[in-house]
Each structure stands twice: as C-alpha cells, then as structure tokens.
C-alpha cells in the first residue's frame, strides 16, 4: 500500500505551480523574441555602418594614393621602400616608373619580360601611424605588413597605364597618352593589403574580396614643364647685353648657336632707347653658311611688347606683373610666386655653392633649382653626361634660376644647363668672370640688362662662351618641372574607353 500513496503524492507535487511555469516560459519566449528583434536591427545597423566605414576608408586610401604619387613624382631619389635616399644607384620615382620620350610622350618604363604581376607597382599600407610603402622596379615586392589589430587600408598606384579591363587585361599594355606631357594615374584603394596572389583587391580589375571595401580613382597628370618655352637664342636679355670691353681689348663674350631649328640666333634683346646693342663686343658663331652678324636679333618685337605692362590698379587678381615678371611668365609659363612655390622646385638658400647645387641636382633628378640671392661658383655645375662609360652616364643639365643680381664664375667654370638671372632689384644681372675661359652650354636669359665684368685683370684667355644647346633645353622642357593634376580629369567610376 505504501507505493501507490507515494506515487500519488509525488504526482501532486510535480504539478504544483504548473501555471506559473507556463506563464514564465511564455514570458521568456516573448522576451527572447523582443531581444532577437532588437538585436536583428542592431546587427543590420552594424552591417550598414561597417559598409559605410569600409567604403570611406577605401576611398580615402585611394585619394591618399593620388596625393602620395604626386608627392613622389615631384620628389627626389627614393629607396625601394619609397623613402628619400642618396644611395648610389637609387632612382627617383619618376625614373623608376616613367619613360619620357624625346617628343615628351610619357609611358611606363619597360619591365622584365613576362612579369605581369601587379605587385611590381608601388603599394602602400597604413600601419596605424604612417604608411609602409614599396617602390619595386623589377620584381614583385609587398610593403611590410603591419602587425597588431586595427584597420590597415592600402593603396596601389598605377602610373601611365590604361584602365585595365576585367578579367584578362594586362596593366602592362602600352598606352600612349592623348598628348605629350600627359599621363594617367590610376589608384586602387582597399581596406586591407591583400597578401595572397589570388586576392585582387588592389588590382583595379573587379570587385574586392568579400567583406572588403574597394575604391578606384583615376586622374590625369601633366608635367608642368619647368621650362615651358625655351629661349630661341643663346643669350636673351629683355633690355640689353653689355659685355665688358674697354677700348682696345678683345671681345670677351663668345656666343654660339648652330641649331638650325632655332634659326641660329645668338643674342636676342629688346634694346629700348638708350640701350643700343654693340655687336662689336661679341664673337658670334651661328649655322654654317650664315654670316655671324645675322645671328643677332636686337630690337626684338616680342621682347618690346612684354616690356609694356598693365596699368597700375587695373587687375582684379593681385598686382600687375612687372616687365621682368612678364619675361618670367613668357619663359616659364607661370607667375614668379607660383613657380617659386611649385613642388618640383628645390631651393638653394643664400650662400649657395657649386657643390650644393650639384648635390641638389644629383638627389633630385628632373627638378628645378632656385638660388636665393647672388651665386658664386667655384666648380662646374650640371652634368653633360658621358656616353663612353658603361653604363652610359645620361646628361643631367641644371635648370637654374638665380634670384639675385650677381653671378660670379670661378676659374674654368662650365655650366651645363639653363641659367635664368632675375637681376635682383636693379633689373641688372652681372656676370663676374675670372681670368680663365668659362662657359655656359644651354642658354642664358636675363630679366633686364645683362652686363659682364671681371674679377681680375682681363687677360686674353678670360672669355665666356655661351653655347645654345637645343638637346639640353629640350630635355629640360620635357622632363623637368612639377607634376600636377589635369583639371577636369578626376573620376571615381570606370570608363575603359576614356584615355
């Protein structure tokens, strides 16, 4: 009898509070449904905001890539990690990736045959505080992968290539820009650096990996030439050229222009009233078969026209240009302050020496050198190159602006390049010559008057030879200067048909 009782009572115990149990269970169900519903919204919110953040990060990385590439292009020599370098054999970014033909057509440098890896292009990844970059030349190199947690966006830069078409197109396809001096820059941005070869987030081909933000920006860049309009004569002076020649002494200024394309002009001046050109103070050599006196172009109409300036106070934007500044604009295509502040210009502060200029030129190939104040040279500047060495030394002329009144040439100094003398406040540029022969190979321009003088006793050997070098001037016109964006060429959508 004991067992049935036991079972009966235990059954009653089991069912006590069943209603509460059911109610509580129902309640839990409702609560969990509410919680799930809320968190569903939360998850959706998070997805949306994560997408937004990724897309913004990728876009900003691509935009940073454009700026970075511009800075690099306007910079000097860099190492394989894209940092400033003065090491032997280091190339500038421009030298690494761009080949500029004699007709100024810009294309990519030739790579190792068959090397189709996109990873041969410069790539950078953000490491939390700065960018780790790689500037490979021949073989694929990745930047150092950042360690730790966090978001590390990356970008890859494709200079002078056409827009690749997915999926088979090679970014190595040669594409000629629509005009000389122009190139296209494509930048792909991604929320992280792809580490496997199969990941194409930075290849500017198709979409990125799942869960990664991807952005592409394409912009055309132009080399704003540092010497937009090279002069047509060996010596150009807006007012006059007055070589030092006391009565009875030999002429001391030798001018040479045997370039047929420039019509062989040796001296080009405006000669306003009071400043006649005394051709007897020159020794000129021009195109064979042409009498030397025909190589002088005094009373030049163009130079006279630029000496006329706009009426004072007539300008909406800034002050009117002076006559000297107008010659500056005619030669360089830019206002003087703009030119001075351009990214492709290197300044040599007062006290500048030949060694300082040569170092600047060697570390910053294809850049302009601006000397602040007078210049005294005790050694050659500019490198004419040497085709006989192995490998041949390419010519590296100097594009020199001397913003002062005085250029003092040391013994036997030879300048290879273009020299522009502003003449300082007096509008008169003076070249002080030594007792030995000196030379300028390229061209010489003075903003006002150009006079020569002697630091010692003028001997027969003390002569300055200014030779017009069309090849050097062309090289500077097509490869020297600053890289700038072409207005109206920025886009963030694909258009493979556009240049």
């Amino acid at each position: 009898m004991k067992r049935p009782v036991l079972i009966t009572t235990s059954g009653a115990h089991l069912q006590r509070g069943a209603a509460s149990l059911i109610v509580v269970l129902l309640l839990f169900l409702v609560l969990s449904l509410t919680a799930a519903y809320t968190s569903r919204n939360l998850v959706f919110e998070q997805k949306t905001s994560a997408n937004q953040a990724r897309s913004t990060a990728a876009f900003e990385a691509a935009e940073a890539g454009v700026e970075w590439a511009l800075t690099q292009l306007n910079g000097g020599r860099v190492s394989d990690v894209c940092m400033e370098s003065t090491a032997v054999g280091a190339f500038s970014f421009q030298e690494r990736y761009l080949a500029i033909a004699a007709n100024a057509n810009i294309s990519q440098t030739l790579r190792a045959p068959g090397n189709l890896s996109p990873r041969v292009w410069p790539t950078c990844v953000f490491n939390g505080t700065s960018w780790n970059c790689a500037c490979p030349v021949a073989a694929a190199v990745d930047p150092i992968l950042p360690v730790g947690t966090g978001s590390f966006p990356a970008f890859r830069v494709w200079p002078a290539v056409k827009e690749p078409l997915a999926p088979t197109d090679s970014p190595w396809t040669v594409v000629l820009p629509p005009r000389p001096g122009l190139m296209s820059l494509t930048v792909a941005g991604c929320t992280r650096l792809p580490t496997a070869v199969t990941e194409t987030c930075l290849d500017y081909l198709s979409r990125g990996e799942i869960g990664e933000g991807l952005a592409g920006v394409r912009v055309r860049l132009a080399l704003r030439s540092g010497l937009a309009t090279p002069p047509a004569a060996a010596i150009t002076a807006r007012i006059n050229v007055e070589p030092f020649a006391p009565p009875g002494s030999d002429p001391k200024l030798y001018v040479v222009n045997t370039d047929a394309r420039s019509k062989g002009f040796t001296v080009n001046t405006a000669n306003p009233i009071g400043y006649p050109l005394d051709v007897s103070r020159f020794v000129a050599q021009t195109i064979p078969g042409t009498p030397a006196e025909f190589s002088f172009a005094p009373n030049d109409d163009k130079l006279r026209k630029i000496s006329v300036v706009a009426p004072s106070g007539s300008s909406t934007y800034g002050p009117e240009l002076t006559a000297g500044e107008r010659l500056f604009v005619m030669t360089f295509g830019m206002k003087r302050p703009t030119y001075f502040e351009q990214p492709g210009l290197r300044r040599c502060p007062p006290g500048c020496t030949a060694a300082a200029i040569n170092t600047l030129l060697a570390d910053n190939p294809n850049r302009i050198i601006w000397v602040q104040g007078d210049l005294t040279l005790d050694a050659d500047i500019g490198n004419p190159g040497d085709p006989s060495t192995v490998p041949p030394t390419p010519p590296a002329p100097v594009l020199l602006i001397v913003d002062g009144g005085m250029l003092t040439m040391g013994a036997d100094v030879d300048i290879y390049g273009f020299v522009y003398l502003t003449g300082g406040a007096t509008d008169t540029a003076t070249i002080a010559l030594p007792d030995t022969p000196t030379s300028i190979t390229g061209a010489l321009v003075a903003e006002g008057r150009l006079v020569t003088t002697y630091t010692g006793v003028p001997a027969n050997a003390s002569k300055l030879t200014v030779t017009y070098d069309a090849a050097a001037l062309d090289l500077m016109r097509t490869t020297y200067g600053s890289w700038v964006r072409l207005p109206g060429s920025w886009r963030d959508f694909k258009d493979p048909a556009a240049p």
Partner: protein
Amino acid sequence: MTQTLRPVMRPVMRPACTRGLSLVELMVGITIGLIVVAGATLLAASQLSENRRLLLETQVQQDLRAAADIIAREVRRGGYNATAHLNIWSPDEPTTQPSSNPYKGLVLNNGIEKVAYRYERPGTIFPYSFGYQWSASTGVIRQRINAATPQDLTDRGAVVITNFDVQPVVVGTQQLACPTLCANGTQNCWPTVTLTDVVITIQGHPTGAGNQALSRTVTSRVRLRNDGLAFTPQACP
C-alpha cells in the same frame, strides 16, 4: 493485485485525473502570474516603443546620410571631362587654342533645382546633366538624370525632408599667367583656377504625426575635383 496495480498505472494512463489543484491554489497562481505578466508587458511595451523610436531615429539618420553621401559623391564628379587634355595648351599643337571644359559649371538654386551639374559618363551623350530638387510641400529630394523625369531619392513613407540646401565655399582663387596682355591692355582676361567646396545640408524627420521631435540634420562638405579651371572665355589672349 488489481488494487495494488491501479495506482502504478494511473499516472501513465490518466495523467489528467490526479488529485488536481485546489481553487485557492489556482487563484493564487493566476494572480501571481498576472502580476508578473503585467509587469513584463509594461516592460516589453516600453522596450518596444523605445526600440521603435530608436529605429525611427536610426532610419532617418541613415536615410539622410545615404542621401547626403549620394549627392556628395555625385557633385564631386561634376565637371569631369574625358577629353580634359583639350582644355590645356600643348606644345604639340601650339596653334590650337585650348577649349573650355563643356562640362564645367555647377549651378545652384536655379529656381527648380537646388544644384545642377554635368559630367561625362560612358555611353552618354552631351550634354549629360544631373540635378537635385526639393520642395517643402513634397518633403522629398528628387534626382534628375539627363532630361528624364526626376526620381525620388528619399522615401516619403519613411522620412520627410524639411530642408535641403547646397552652398558653395570658395577656398581660394588664383589667376594663371599668360604671356600676352588682354586686348584692353589689362591682365583681367587671363584664366583662373578656383578651389571650391560644396556644403550639403539635409534636415528631416520620420514620417507620421508626432515624429517632428525626431528631426535630424546631416551636413556633408565635399571638395569639387574637376570644376576649377575657368576661361574668360578664351584660355590666353
């Protein structure tokens, strides 16, 4: 034997026929249950209404943000020209005058549209143009693509746009230099380059009565990439 077996079989065969709850037990149980349910319902209701409010807020934020982003992204492209190289002088063709960018020119508040702009897109014909319009009566931002009828950018059923404004901020203007003076002897006809930012402001609240309090404003500032170079009307005299 049968009697001793019966209690054993009972729970299996007739589970409902136990001794049962007493009325008091039931009442107490129901009362406690009701109190708990009432409390929980109150909690759940307030949670749900809070959640709804949050959702509305989020939705209006998101809709405004999405609209501002779309407009910013589009306006940023304004002035893009696939043949932009024709707008600059080239030593290759020294006698060819640079042409003015036909896609240039952001138009603000032209009476119908708050902002109108142009840029070149693949597969389109000139003058391909875009615009955004808004009116307080509709409370909707509409996007126009070419000459087609504008389409709603924001959802009237979800958010009412109470204000939409596009304002330019000129960061700076520089005049380029030409070798030649203008015909009147001044420098004023030389081209200029202007750096312009555009500030887009959108204000809105969720659709429905009593939701005006949930009004939110989104502001986006964007630098125009392509719309800087201006000729007057020629490049250089």
